[in-house]
């Protein structure tokens, strides 16, 4: 039930912009709760990686006096990975194309994260 609701938020998010290729909701200890990822992606590993990145980002932000972490962004040759908190105990991961308009994606991701936090 909850997974269905999360999935519908994710599919709305993926549909909101052609630049968003995939997304997932992950518990903060790295387990996938719902995902719309390409078939060849291992959900468990992506989940664990997102949790590790976000947790390190949080510690780094605090260590360098940047306050509470809002998001972690990774940029590769082929595009972006954006991770942000969706409530205290979950992570929203968004995978976007390389020519994506980041401002819009931030906005969509923030909206989706809020909706996810409300469900959890």
């Amino acid at each position, binding site marked *: 039930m909850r997974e269905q609701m999360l999935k519908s938020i994710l599919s709305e998010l993926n549909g909101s912009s052609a630049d968003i290729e995939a997304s997932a909701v992950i*518990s*903060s*200890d*790295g*387990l996938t709760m719902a995902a719309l990822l390409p078939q060849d992606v291992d959900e*468990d*590993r992506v*989940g*664990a*990686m997102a*949790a*590790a*990145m976000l*947790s*390190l980002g*949080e*510690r780094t932000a605090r*260590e360098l006096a940047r306050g509470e972490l809002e998001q972690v962004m990774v940029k590769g040759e082929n595009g972006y990975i954006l991770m942000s908190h969706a409530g*205290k*105990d979950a992570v929203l991961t968004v995978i976007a194309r390389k020519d994506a308009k980041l401002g819009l994606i931030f906005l969509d991701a923030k909206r989706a994260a809020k909706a996810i936090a409300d469900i959890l």
Partner: protein
Amino acid sequence: MKRLDNKIIFTGPVGAGKTTAIGSISDIPPIKTDAAASDMTLHRKSHTTVALDYGVLNLDGGAKVHLYGTPGQERFDFMWDILSTGGIGLILLLDNSRPNPMKDMQFFMNAFKDFLREAPLVIGVTKTDVKPSPSVKHYAEILARVDQRPPIFEIDGRNREDVKNLVMALLFSIDPGLEG
């Protein structure tokens, strides 16, 4: 001591006490990355390490030992590779109260087998007060069958001296002339 900075890695299954052990011996406030547990871990404890633990142990004579702790769950095995790069030795903590600590030992020794080809291993067995068997001797016998003879200790991860002994045993096996 020749090298001034050394990096050692603490690994082992969930709940073996890696975070606690690093917290016990670190001379700086340890860096922890723990998150609320939602998996099977929840039966054992409320929080679990998701990226790494980090601490520093200062030895007499000015040498520094950087202590890195890994997450325990297998889904974080990419962190095992990342953290063990550049390390000079491995401390494997085993939780004696888990269903099959012997299997845990074999699992982690296999997961780190490439690393252990180049670097020594020391084993610390925790929670022997909760469950006394298998004994340290039993672990040693099983390892001897595959021609492995790492130092094995019964330890309490909350006890600074216990954990420091593990680290010193590891450093001695790298450099027997070391003075702690």
